[in-house]
């Protein structure tokens, strides 16, 4: 077909010019290798590693990204031998290697992202990790007097960093990106706060530790409030574009968010239906409620798109995604820790 040939011809021509610069390719190669070192294979490979340590170290250290980051940090990773930093990746709060994990491994990985957006997302990811770690130690009753304050300090650091990146993004008039970041922080803090609340009521927990965890959860609520306010500010900014006559960029953002919300709902349905988790009655009800409520917000948003309310539709799709995100965290925690998280709090998300 002539059209097909023409398209292929112009793409082949253009492909010659859409390429990584050699230095870019090399930098990313070094970054990937750093990642590989801190995440080793769980099985013994058939062949031993052929790349010599010195050539690897040379490659990492001469990469431009290193010059902008902390050589001391990377040197620690390089020279502390894979053994130390590899073992650290499984460390939990209170373990001796926990500081290597959060102070070295994760810092190294934070250097290898390029954009504010990805850095913010990585910090949100780390914040979620901190919360999951906290849940594990609380469930195992292995926290000590300092655990809660140690984790809270790290968590606050990740949230502050994510928020700072989001603020820079917002100043570049990309409110939809910062709104997304704040929404993810909000949903994560809210959901994990409820999980920790349920875990705190576990039997055999000393009263002092219960109070520490309650204080931690109370801190989470405050952070959740901040994330909510930041997200609402960004969404209001977007909604203002609907009446300002600047709908173009917001329309596409709303449509992209609709696609993301729909995909997330489908993914959650598969998660529930394909038996990855065997749900008890309460969890099954929560999952069903979440799917229905998220679906209602999606439909509401679609109606708004049809009438030009793109900013407001964006907010509805975000709400749908938060509902699913929270449900997923709850159900995974209920299954993992054998707890029940009261459904009552979740009805706040039900659309009126």
């Amino acid at each position, binding site marked *: *077909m002539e*059209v*097909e040939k*023409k*398209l*292929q011809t*112009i*793409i082949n*021509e*253009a*492909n*010659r*010019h*859409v*390429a*990584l*610069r*050699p230095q*870019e*390719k090399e930098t*990313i*190669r070094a*970054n*990937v*290798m750093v*990642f*590989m070192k801190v*995440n*080793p*294979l*769980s*099985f013994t*490979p*058939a*062949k*031993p*590693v*052929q*790349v010599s340590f010195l050539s690897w170290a040379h490659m990492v250290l001469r990469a431009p990204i290193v010059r902008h980051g902390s050589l001391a940090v990377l040197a620690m990773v390089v020279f502390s031998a894979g053994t130390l930093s590899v073992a650290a990746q499984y460390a939990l709060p209170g373990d001796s290697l926990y500081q290597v994990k959060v102070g070295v491994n994760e810092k190294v990985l934070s250097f*290898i*992202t*390029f*954009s504010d*957006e*990805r850095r913010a997302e990585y910090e949100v990811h780390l914040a979620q990790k901190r919360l999951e770690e906290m849940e594990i130690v609380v469930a195992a009753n292995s926290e000590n007097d300092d655990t809660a304050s140690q984790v809270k300090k790290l968590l606050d650091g990740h949230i502050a960093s994510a928020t700072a990146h989001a603020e820079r993004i917002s100043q570049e008039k*990309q409110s*939809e*990106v910062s709104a*997304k970041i704040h929404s993810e922080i909000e949903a994560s803090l809210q959901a994990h706060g409820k999980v920790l609340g349920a875990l705190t009521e576990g039997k055999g927990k000393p009263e002092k530790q219960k109070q520490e965890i309650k204080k931690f959860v109370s801190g989470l609520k405050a952070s959740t409030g901040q994330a909510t306010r930041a997200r609402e500010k960004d969404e209001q900014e977007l909604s203002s574009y609907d009446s300002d006559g600047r709908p173009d*960029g917001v329309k*596409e*953002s709303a449509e*992209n*968010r609709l*696609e*993301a919300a729909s*995909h997330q709902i489908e993914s959650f349905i598969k998660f529930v239906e394909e038996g990855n988790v065997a749900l008890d009655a309460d969890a099954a009800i929560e999952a069903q409620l979440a799917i229905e409520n998220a679906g209602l917000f999606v439909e509401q948003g679609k109606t708004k798109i049809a009438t030009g309310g793109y900013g407001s539709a964006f907010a509805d799709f975000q709400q749908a995604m938060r509902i699913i995100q929270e449900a997923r965290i709850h159900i995974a925690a209920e299954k993992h820790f054998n707890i029940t998280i009261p459904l009552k709090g979740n009805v706040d998300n039900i659309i009126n």
Partner: protein
Amino acid sequence: MAELNEQQFTEAYDKYADAIFRHCYYRVFDREIAKDFMQEAFCKTWKYLSDGHHIDNLRAFLYRTANNLIIDASRKKKHMSLDGLMEKGFVPHSDPRQTANDHATAKEVMAVIDSLDEKYRQVMILKYVDDLSPKEISEVVGEKENNVYIRLHRGLAKVKEIIAKQENQKK
């Protein structure tokens, strides 16, 4: 595929990095974001392996991972329009000796891809930029091969319209 070791994975990076970057670039039209996605696709794939999982077709897996990353990120920063790209000093190329004609060619393909709906853009890029077969595309996007054929057919029809319009404008 036998279990991969570090060297084999590094060799796979050398082999597929440019292609995965190009794919990401045509999807998002932002060089820095495309680099992030490409890097993350390799890291996530490695993580999958390091968690003890098995991958039959590494190339397809990398594309699928990149595709999922792009979709999950739900391009909040809208993929750049050509006008937006030109304002930013659009430079997709790596060769400073690029001629005006080369630039025009890149602009042509951008205009075509830019005009497609995302669902067509995705499969058209996988076919015509990445040279994947419909079967491989179906593995990447997670849809039936038949649906992929339909989307390719409709995408091509749309491209025909765009190219015809461009040629009319040139006259």
